[in-house]
């Protein structure tokens, strides 16, 4: 079993690195007990969910099986969990209400997208990546991140952003979703078991920025301390 893992790791290092790199922020949250703060608790849940799913995908991929179904399922869950962090970070009630509304709407939309792109859901071998959901998710997440940045600049409550953990998390998410925005619709055609479209180096861009975002999460979490965060 380990041989197949190593073999896959050697063949797809850029896709495999973020799977195991996810363990770093999980460990840092656990060590610094950052989960006492609600935002970090949600981040921890998201990272654990991501690790379990990514590892399952890694396992399936190393055994030459189509993993797109897991990716498709992860899209709505990922949006709900990451946007949930912003629910606690945004200050205005109106913004929170819109964020809450966006969650079920997006979940519904992504379920529709999964069914639309894969009329035969049980045919796992020919499962295709969602066509619109990832792009819509990226747009929505970029909107919430930029809104949070705007509120932060206006409120002037954080003296030094570099010491502020959530700023690093936002930066990581901003880079990840920016890298995904234009590539996501093409991934629908590229991530197929048969008759797939070759997009070359672009296929690895989301993986690279996934790793970058995880490293930024880790930097942010390492800045966390109970007392300073309370301020």
């Amino acid at each position, binding site marked *: 079993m380990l041989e197949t893992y190593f073999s896959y790791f050697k063949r797809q290092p850029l896709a495999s690195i973020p799977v195991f790199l996810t363990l770093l922020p999980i460990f840092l949250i656990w060590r610094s007990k950052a989960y006492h703060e609600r935002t970090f608790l949600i981040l921890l849940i998201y990272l654990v969910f991501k690790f379990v799913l990514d590892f399952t995908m890694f396992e399936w991929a190393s055994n030459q099986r189509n993993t797109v179904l897991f990716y498709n399922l992860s899209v709505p869950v990922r949006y709900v969990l990451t946007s949930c962090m912003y629910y606690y970070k945004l200050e205005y009630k109106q913004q929170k209400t819109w964020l809450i509304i966006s969650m079920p709407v997006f979940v519904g939309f992504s379920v529709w997208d999964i069914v639309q792109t894969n009329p035969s859901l049980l045919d796992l071998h020919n499962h295709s990546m969602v066509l619109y959901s990832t792009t819509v998710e990226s747009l929505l997440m970029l909107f919430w991140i930029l809104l949070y*940045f705007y509120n932060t600049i206006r409120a002037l409550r954080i003296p030094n952003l570099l010491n502020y953990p959530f700023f690093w998390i936002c930066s990581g998410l901003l880079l990840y979703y920016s890298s995904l925005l234009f590539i996501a619709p093409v991934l629908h055609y590229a991530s197929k078991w048969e008759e797939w479209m070759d997009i070359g180096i*672009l296929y690895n861009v989301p993986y690279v920025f996934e790793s970058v975002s995880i490293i930024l999460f880790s930097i942010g979490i390492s800045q966390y301390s109970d007392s300073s965060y309370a301020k």
Partner: protein
Amino acid sequence: MQNNDELKLVLLIASIAMLMMAFFVIMFVMYYQKKKFEEEKKINDIEKNYNRLLLDTALNSEETERRRIAQDLHDDIGTMLSLTKLSLNQLSKLIVTSGDDKEDAIMKKSQSLVEETILHVRRITRDLVPTTLERFGLMEAIEEFIHKLEEDNNLVISFQSSTEEFPRQGQKLELTLYRIMQELVNNAIKHANCNKIDISLEIDEEIIGLRVTDNGVGFDPDKIKESNLAGLGLLGIESRLAIVNGTVQYEQPTQGGSSAIARIPVNPASGNKPEPLHPFRRERVNI
């Protein structure tokens, strides 16, 4: 195939552009936040200095006004009372020769009232302008203040100093410490229902500490601050301290009562001797 290559190129350019925008946003947020904070800090500093200047001017005006009133009391009312006393003495001699006992008794009562009024005027004048403070320094002024209070009230007031010869400080600093001490002691007498007050004065190379402790009912300083009950007295103390970069801390000793400690950075007096208050000068004083 060519279309595919073009698509890849377009996607690559779009993704690089998007990532550059994301980097720019992150950098912009960091830079703008830092810049705005610096500006905000500058505005706060200007506001703080302006408020300090206003407060300083207000306190200077108060001291000038005190001196003016003290001068009027001393020069006008004091002189008139002395003349009245002189006239009454002359009248008293006439009444004694006339031999009317009733008139003599009224005269003696009038004389005693005038004398008492003269004493009151002197006391008020001294309260208004602490001449001892400017002539002899803080320790003597506090001792004099205690002596007067013990005469008038049923109180035991003790005073300790960490040094026998308390070095003279700047006029403003000495007056600030004296007024704070006055306010704290008056507060203890008015509100604490105490019968013992301890005043201590400590000085090291950097800080002068003035502590006033009473054995009265005590108060919770946090509650007073939260409920905006800090009267003009406590606010006045904080205002005076803000001008000389001082701080005040209120404590509740375990044995009961309350304790306040004011800390002010040392500011030794310059070579110039303080100008004497008597005879009073009409000019505005800058403390």
